[in-house]
């Protein structure tokens, strides 16, 4: 921790050193800290207003900072070291093994506009997708709807709205700092953050990751009780009632999007909390696995409406919770069997790619590579 002193006011704070932050400055998030919030919140956060005055509401100059011999644990769903894309020949040491690995695995694919003009499908060339039909099982037909999702990395700003929307739509429990620090967060959608370039001024890329609804799902074959199965519309369904909690599916999931109820995280006893929950979504108990469902309750709702009116579900009629709140419309959901749908359109783009496609999972969630149009003079300076 450090002690920050402005004039005669001082505050003890934890620091998190991030790549790209301007030298000689620090960002303090405003908030009062919590002193009397009961069991959940007492003693969490810091009162940043002690440093803020009406004379200098947003920027304070002349702050002094001093390292003090105290420790404060920060819980983060991302790695504590930085995930980065290695900057090429002169590798920066600061990014660590995670960065080198992320770069090698081409998880987030970024190109410049110029590169795109020369080679429009560059993103597809960065990985290797095995051809269809390598499986010993005959291919599965999806004659009706086939749900799919596309995420435009160029549009994603990493605002986290999708994470929050998903949490409230799907009754996802909030597990608290200790659990997050142990790596037990329950979010069905997460945003992976990547740094690219030099440590001093990196580019930041965001990649929302949720269940890929793989057509060849590695989780399904290993479940001993058939608690995760494929639907006729290509959803990878979780049958909570059937799950005994072997966690084998999560181990075999290369995307690590499955979440396990290590304890009984949901409070099902307090009556008032019933009002908090979405009545269309099962509240999960202890010892079962859960994960993104592509908001199956919304799909079923739309299906019922469409059947009442004796028609097909229209494109755009179903919006997943994450899609609905995305301020940049980076997320598109729909029927990939319908060639006119927006999601088919997105998946047909030259920038479309799947992550870890080389494993032959054939994910239904795909990404659009990010394009940048750098100003050459600015980039060089």
């Amino acid at each position, binding site marked *: 921790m450090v002690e920050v002193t402005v004039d005669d006011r001082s505050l003890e704070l934890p620091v998190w050193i991030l790549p790209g932050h301007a030298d000689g400055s620090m960002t303090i998030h405003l908030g009062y800290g919590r002193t009397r919030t009961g069991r959940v919140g007492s003693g969490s956060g810091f009162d940043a207003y002690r440093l803020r005055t009406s004379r200098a509401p947003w920027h304070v100059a002349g702050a002094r900072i001093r390292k003090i011999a105290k420790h404060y644990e920060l819980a983060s769903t991302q790695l504590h070291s930085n995930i980065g894309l290695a900057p090429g020949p002169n590798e920066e040491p600061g990014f660590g093994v*995670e960065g080198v690995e992320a770069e090698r695995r081409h998880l987030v694919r970024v190109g410049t506009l110029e590169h795109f003009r020369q080679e429009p499908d560059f993103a597809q060339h960065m990985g290797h997708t095995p051809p269809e039909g390598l499986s010993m099982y005959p291919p599965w037909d999806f004659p009706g709807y086939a749900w799919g999702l596309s995420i435009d990395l160029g549009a994603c700003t990493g605002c986290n709205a999708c994470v929050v929307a998903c949490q409230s739509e799907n009754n996802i429990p909030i597990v608290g700092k200790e659990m997050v620090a142990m*790596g037990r967060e329950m979010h069905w959608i997460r945003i992976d953050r990547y740094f690219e370039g030099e440590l001093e001024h990196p580019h930041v890329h965001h990649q929302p*990751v949720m269940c890929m609804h793989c057509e060849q799902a590695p989780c399904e074959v290993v479940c*001993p*009780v058939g608690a995760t199965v494929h639907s006729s519309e290509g959803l990878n369904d979780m049958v909570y009632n059937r799950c005994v909690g072997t966690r084998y599916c999560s*181990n075999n999931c290369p995307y690590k999007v499955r979440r396990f109820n290590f304890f009984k995280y949901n409070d099902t006893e307090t009556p008032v909390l019933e009002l908090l929950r979405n009545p269309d979504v099962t509240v999960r108990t202890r010892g079962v696995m859960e994960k993104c469902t592509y908001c199956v309750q919304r799909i079923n709702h739309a299906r019922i409406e469409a059947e009442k009116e004796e028609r097909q579900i229209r494109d755009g009629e179903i919006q997943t919770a994450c899609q609905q709140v995305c301020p940049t419309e980076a997320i598109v959901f729909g029927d990939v069997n319908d060639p006119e749908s927006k999601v088919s359109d997105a998946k047909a783009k030259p920038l479309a790619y799947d992550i*870890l496609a080389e494993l032959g999972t054939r994910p239904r969630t795909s990404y659009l590579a990010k394009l940048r149009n750098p100003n050459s003079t600015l980039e060089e300076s």
Partner: protein
Amino acid sequence: MTAPGKPPIVAPGHTPGSVTDQISSIVLTRMPRWWWAAFGASFALVMMLLYALTKLVFEGTGIWGLNIPVGWGFAIINFVWWIGIGHAGTLISAILLLLRQEWRTSINRFAEAMTLFAVACAGLFPLIHVGRPWLAYWLLPYPNTMDIWPQFRSPLVWDVFAVTTYATVSLLFWYVGLVPDLATLRDRARQRLAKITYGFLSMGWRGSATHWHNYETAYLLLAGLATPLVVSVHTVVSFDFAVGQLPGWHATIFPPYFVAGAIFAGFAMVITLAVPLRTLFDLKDFITIRHLQNMGKVMLATGLIVAYGYVIEIFMAWYSGNWFEEFMILNRIQGPYRMQWYALLLCNVLAPQLLWIKRVRSTPALLFVVAMFVNVGMWLERFVIVVTSLHRDFLPSSWGMYAGTRWDWAIFVGSIGLFLALLFLFIRFLPMISIFEMRTIVPKTQAREPDEVSP
């Protein structure tokens, strides 16, 4: 029959009568004071195990150190470790019986018992490692009103079959082998309760020629049944990993490498138990240096296969050209769990090399030390396979770290307590060396000194 220069499998000077006296007296006389102390200590550990299990059932799997990405930890490590240890018994009993290796006779009984207890400990872990243990029976195919069956493509279902079959056949094999000796104990017991119990368990054995004929047939058949199980069980256990697509798990070398590892671990545990027991109960005449030497040789041979497995894993990571595999090996060598990997190499590859030296093989204390290294090393091997593969897999954003909590340790140590407690009870109530089989080999050991054979 002793080849010249080899130590005998029974010390000279024994008669069938003296064999029976010495082995059955362990059961029929009062236990020495150290037995009570040792049994008490292991029983205390069993109580700790029960306490930890109760907490686990009431609070949840979260009391362990598991997380996402490391969804399997101590429970699976312990399961594979115990089931591996449980391999030596059947190997010694069945395969060595079929190969007519007579030296097996004095160690087979307690090796079989050890197998049973190790399988019991192993069987505990798949049950408790699931999130909802009270529903673990859903892995069994049983008719139910919902008409739902297990998902037969999952290796965990294969595991259920493999382990339950193994446990059943091991129990039968052990029990059938015990019947003639139970009759001996029935005849020699003085207390009424002991007479009735042993009499009940010996199923009316009177030692007639028909009895012996039936017995020999049944025992041989069971040996034939048990033999493929020695190979199949750990093969299926290795499928838990090999069928997954995780780098570090997804390897075709796993079945043979696991089976060799299991025999390696099993013999190490037999030595770990045999060395102190032969001293404490004065059984040096029956468990001789020859036995220890042979077990040391088996350990060395299987240890070399295991070492070959390690080398092939590294070679395949490079040869496959699969970057995920390559990274997995680099992460083992340089990553945060590298110390466990180096310790594993020390215990499983370097330590057994001492067994090339005859003096080490024939010195019980040194053999015991090597066996202890192997016991630890085989646990570490499973730790490396389970945890080091899981903690850094495909997406760096999801990487994490894992460490066992005190409850992980309590259950692990508690399971060792359970194993030892069962073993001490076995020593107390059943003959730990097969009396009648020892009697059959006594005349052979003395064939060269006809003068000394008692009338």
